[in-house]
């Protein structure tokens, strides 16, 4: 098996329960290396469950199937190890960490990952340079760096902060969990620019979204429809447009 042929993410017959209730019921999904996939679906279809389970959150019980990332089974792997191996989750609801400056947090994260990979840590100057460059690239104000992580941030600022973190951590697989929800058009463009900048032959992105709107800016290679805990249909970007018109009714669940 050559390296280029291994998919970035390969999910096979995945069953996941939360608090005894089965949410994912035999989900299959393959994201090729260098591709951007969009995952769409009605509320309650299991989109967030999938993103959490890829990132390794504890409360989700995998009762069957497996998630393979770059040929490696993720089962039982700690969230911080997954992060170090290049998996990034942009949270739907970013968490506040009072008293911890964004820069402190980001430097901690960057160096934790570099340590895991056996790379030298960035010193204060190198890190500052990286931050300056990324905030400039994304058109994010440097003021945001000094503030405590997500504390007092507006909804749009929180999402931009997720994209900034993504840009700085430079993941191989980025999963965006409804990052576009509640964003105005300017914030949406920043999110899209962040994803498009990451596009490279050795990286992949899974964009989870409720609406087609984001896909005007991030053109996906593949679109999947998740409903009732399984992928119901897959297609090209035209599938997103079709869903926008017809809704999710044909998949047996109405959009909430």
């Amino acid at each position: 098996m050559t390296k280029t042929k291994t998919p970035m993410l390969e999910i096979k017959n995945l069953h996941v329960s939360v608090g005894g209730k089965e949410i994912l019921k035999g989900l299959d999904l393959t994201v090729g290396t260098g591709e951007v996939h969009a995952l769409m679906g009605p509320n309650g279809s299991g989109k967030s469950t999938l993103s959490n389970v890829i990132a390794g959150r504890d409360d989700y019980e995998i009762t069957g199937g497996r998630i393979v990332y770059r040929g490696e089974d993720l089962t039982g792997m700690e969230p911080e190890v997954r992060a170090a191996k290049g998996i990034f989750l942009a949270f739907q609801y970013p968490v506040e960490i009072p008293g911890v400056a964004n820069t402190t947090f980001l430097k901690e994260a960057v160096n934790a990952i570099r340590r895991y990979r056996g790379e030298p840590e960035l010193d204060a100057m190198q890190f500052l340079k990286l931050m300056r460059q990324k905030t400039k690239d994304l058109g994010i104000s440097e003021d945001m760096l000094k503030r405590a992580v997500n504390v007092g941030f507006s909804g749009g600022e929180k999402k931009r902060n997720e994209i900034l973190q993504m840009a700085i951590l430079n993941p191989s697989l980025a999963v965006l969990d409804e990052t576009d929800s509640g964003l105005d058009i300017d914030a949406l463009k920043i999110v899209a620019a962040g994803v498009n900048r990451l596009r490279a032959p050795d990286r992949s992105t899974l964009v989870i979204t409720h609406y087609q709107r984001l896909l005007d800016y991030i053109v996906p290679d593949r679109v999947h429809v998740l409903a009732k805990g399984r992928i119901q249909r897959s297609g090209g970007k035209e599938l997103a447009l079709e869903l926008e018109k017809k809704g999710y009714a044909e998949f047996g669940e109405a959009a909430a």
Partner: protein
Amino acid sequence: MAPPVNTVDQVRDLTDKKYQFGFVTEIESDTAPKGLNEDIVRFISAKKKEPEWLLAWRLKAYRHWLTMAEPKWSKVRHPAIDYQDAYYYSAPKSSGDGPKTLDEIDPELIRTYEKLGIPLREQERLAGVAVDAVFDSVSVATTFKAKLEEVGVIFCPISEAVEKCPDLVKKYLGSVVPYTDNKHATLNSAVFTDGSFVYIPPGVRCPMELSTYFRINAKKTGQFERTLIIADKGSYVSYLEGCTAPMRDENQLHAAVVELIALDDAEIKYSTVQNWYPGDENGKGGIFNFVTKRGACRGRNSKISWTQVETGSAITWKYPSCILQGDNSVGEFYSIAVTNNFQQADTGTKMIHLGRNTTSRIISKGISAGRGEQTYRGLVRMSAKAEGARNFTQCDSLLIGDKCGAHTVPYIESKNNSAIVEHEATTSTISEDQLFYLRQRGIRPEEAVALVVNGFCREVLQHLPMEFAVEAQKLVGISLEGSVG
């Protein structure tokens, strides 16, 4: 000053060290017979070659102590203390009449302080910090004395001050914490052995941080140091104290008294990093830290600021307080207390507003983990004459795990209609959401906890002098080790 951002690195470096100061120095000691009676009080006074008035004061205190009951109003619980089963005086034998230069100090002692990260040789010392090192019952070294004397600052062991400036000692000793104050302070008055004395003359801004480093070494020995700091008119001093002790499976008593006096326009900043041995993870051993600290803002526009980081001790019972006598005087209390395993802390402050337009500010951050129990206990009193007085209090508690406790007991008394008292309190936990968020960014759980805790403490850490802020952040991280998962 913002705390350095590399704390987590340091916490990581120290992983698995647990209580790293738990070693014992093998050194010959000159020790008083075990137990407590008038002869022991006389023995200590004679050892120190004290004048008659001081012996008389000690004996008054001792006789009063015999009549006193232990304070029972705090939340801490411990077996009765057997005062006869302890030694009240222990000095490194070599010290004799007190070393004149560092060359006369037993090299074993110098090595002990080096192991603690406190080099006593001045050329190795961080620039700008003078150190008084107290080992068991005596001061073994005071650095930078000559340089301080140039500007008239007196910084010496209190036993030396009794000889050198008896008038100052006589005037102020017991003037803020009277020998009748409480059982622990009264015991200290009877048997105090050493401690630091500081006098800052009028108009002088002390050119360096003053620091005392306390070390309990001998077995079954209580430590009773007494610190007296006088800031004369228009002067300023920043004073730091640190403390450690060997790991022993008995409980050792530490009953210190600190008195601060600030005259007109003077300011005293007093910082503590308390890291006495906390006992093991089953609650065996550790120091009983029963300390009375009080400052008097005697003069107009004077200011006293207490900052404490309390991570050690099996039990901490401590309320650094301010008596705001002078008009426009300011009292501050910034505190971080950590209780893990079976540690107990009952700590807080008293702000007694007597003068007009006096202000006080209390910021208390309590962190409880394991089976730790923690109480913030504070009194804000606005007396009838405290026209226009103001207080702001904020008490935040952070709980880690589900077997620890946090309690807040504020007492507020106001006898003046124009006084304003504000009290805010929060209790929070480190949430699963926070931990998962940080871990998803590659940060390991222990580092994630340290990061959240440092954020929680930030407001207080900012008030510590730089050298101590780094050490304090490290300590908080180490103290909480093993509290996640």
